């Protein structure tokens, strides 16, 4: 017997002995409830309403409308050639706002498809417009608010686990949150990141918006798993499946999850929602999905559902929907004007922030390039002027 043996811990077999038969464990053995507070027809159990005051309930509405208006305006300016590409979040407002409403400024947030949560944390629409114009400065501002956008799908999950690891070492009163999509759960990085959080007990909150599609791939073909929530169980992480069209249910679920995560138990939330628009402005969804499906979801609009709730609670009279839309449109106009005012940047920007100090070879490349641009102004005939930012 070596000394090491005492360190080898194999989890004991648990449960009954199987009675000598080969028995299969199946996902179908597990009933997976979907948390819902307000039903699609607007009815709800008053007891289940989360503890939010009237002002907060009205804020939820306002932020959802902000999300919708921002998507609409961004798609419009993209079509005018003022952005590169953009991914609308229309249809996912309840999922996005309900979850983000639980987060505190000291929490970290890495998003996939979600912009308003970053506004809620202090990022500006101007910076978001700059980012989608392909101007790096936008990201500097996001980082100041502990927020980031991950473009390479799933790549941020190990990163978020690492941030949570730091929080764990610091005993921080905060959580690290990764927003991800259904497609991201197929990446290797996602599995490793979630597993690390599970094995070390890190304060990581994985908020997965299952919006039905990874570009053209419907969830049913993305994975053989019945639900994404079930996947978390394999990592020893508890999961919640929530109706992502019900902002109160999402808030309730993520609020509950955040409390648990803060105590060092990572949680995975699957929010079932729908992407009403294309994957991005470069995508044509009519190639891979039926109009009837989209119409069905259009008829189950999350903002409309919440409106029914507000009416029942007698709060709708306090909302002037048109005035809210007007205000947000005005805010967007102002942000766009500010983005348009941004001065043209120097080529040194390309070399900035790659290292703490510019290494000699990079300095040489920059100097050569600056000298070339001066000597051969015809370079600018080839360097198309990009959308102003």
């Amino acid at each position, binding site marked *: 017997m070596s000394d090491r043996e005492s360190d080898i811990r194999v989890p004991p077999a648990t449960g009954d002995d199987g009675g000598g038969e080969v028995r299969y464990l199946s996902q179908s053995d597990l009933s997976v409830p979907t948390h819902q507070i307000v039903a699609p027809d607007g009815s709800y159990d008053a007891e289940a309403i989360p503890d939010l005051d009237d002002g907060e309930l009205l804020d939820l509405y306002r932020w959802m409308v902000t999300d919708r208006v921002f998507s609409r305006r961004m798609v419009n300016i993209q079509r005018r050639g003022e952005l*590169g*590409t953009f991914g609308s979040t229309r249809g996912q407002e309840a999922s996005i706002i309900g979850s983000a409403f639980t987060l505190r400024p000291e929490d970290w947030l890495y998003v996939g498809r979600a912009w308003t949560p970053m506004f809620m944390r202090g990022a500006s629409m101007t910076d978001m417009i700059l*980012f989608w*114009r*392909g*101007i*790096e400065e936008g990201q500097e501002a996001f980082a100041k608010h502990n927020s980031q956008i991950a*473009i*390479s*799908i*799933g*790549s941020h999950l190990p990163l978020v686990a690492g941030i949570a690891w730091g929080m764990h070492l610091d005993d921080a009163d905060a959580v690290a949150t990764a927003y991800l999509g259904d*497609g*991201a759960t*197929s*990446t*290797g*990085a996602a599995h490793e990141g979630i597993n690390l959080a599970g094995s070390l007990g890190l304060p990581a909150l994985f908020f997965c918006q299952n919006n039905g599609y*990874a*570009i*053209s*791939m419907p969830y049913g*073909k*993305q*994975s053989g798993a019945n639900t994404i929530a079930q996947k978390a169980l394999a990592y020893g992480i508890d999961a919640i499946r929530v109706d992502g069209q019900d902002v109160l249910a999402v808030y309730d679920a993520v609020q509950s999850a955040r409390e648990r995560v803060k105590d060092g138990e990572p949680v995975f939330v699957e929010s079932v929602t729908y992407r009403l628009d294309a994957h991005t402005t*470069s*995508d*044509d969804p009519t*190639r*891979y999905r039926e109009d009837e499906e989209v119409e069905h979801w259009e008829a189950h609009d999350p903002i409309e559902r919440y409106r029914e709730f507000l009416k029942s609670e007698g709060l709708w009279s306090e909302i002037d929907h048109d005035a809210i839309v007007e205000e947000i449109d005005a805010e967007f106009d102002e942000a766009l004007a500010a983005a348009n005012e941004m001065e043209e*940047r120097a*080529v040194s*920007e*390309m*070399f900035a922030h*790659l290292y703490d100090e510019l290494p000699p*070879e*990079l300095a040489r*490349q*920059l100097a050569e*390039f600056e000298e*070339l641009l001066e*000597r*051969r102004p*015809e*370079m600018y005939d*080839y*360097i*198309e002027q*990009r*959308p102003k*930012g």
Partner: protein
Amino acid sequence: MQATIVQAVNDALHTEMERDDRVVVFGEDVAESGGVFRATDELLEEFGSKRVVDTPLSEIAIVGGAAGMAMYGYRPVAEIQFSGFLPPAFDQLVTNASRIRWRTRGELSAPMVVRMPYGAGVRALEHHSESLEGAYGHIPGLQVVVPSTPADTKGLLTAAIRDPDPVLFMEPKRIYRSIREEIPEGEHEVPIGEAAIRSEGEDVTVVAWGAMMPPTLEAVEHGSVDAEVIDLRSISPMDTETVVESVKKTGRCVVVHEGPRTLGVGSEIVARINDEALMYLESPVERVTGFDTPVPLLSMEDFYFPHPPRILDGIEAALSD
């Protein structure tokens, strides 16, 4: 028929799938939607869902899966949607695909193709614009091919699919649709590992490939230089002989590439010229390349890659010494 580069990809896939029923095409969004660039358009309709498959969003599984399928006897042609998404699967290229033949002492091989659009200049997001052929060319056992014309695209992709070893096929997406030329009908093969001389000249050799060919040819024309322009076409294996013979004739050389300069393909070309034609050189070999920085986001990406004036500047520098 007249075709663009992306249509040539599509034509090669159609032709090879028809010829060999072991050819299977898969990747993200390749079937139902026909690929985000439409490179795999109509394949699903023609060959069915067993041979044209939408995969989950899983680059590691796509590349590793292709290697396994190839070992078993199929001819997978996997698509990575953008070259910036290949890095997660780098491990499968290094650890498995490139070494199957070597590891099994020739008993098994991985005759697979990984196709992917590469390069900057289409206003894409972060991780969509990389040109890292130097990194992939560094992997022993992996062939790296970069076409620059529609006819070559069809011929080289055909050769890649038929090749008994793995090929990384990098498609210059910036010129996917900007060049249209006659491509051969039916089967058409261009051998991997042979460079093409695009224009003959006496004064300087200019080596480029992929999306850098059009600006290179424009620079040469614009500068009225008597340049010999070589389209390398294959990064690995590299056609040293064509480059060296040309340099022996001209005595001067410029290498143009979009990827970062440090440890880029240009460095290797300079080394090979030093090995075999040093005494013929009349001036140092010039490199006109991308910078050692990430490709900037779209607002400044056009500053990143070489344009004709920069290429011409490099040519003039090589001629001035």
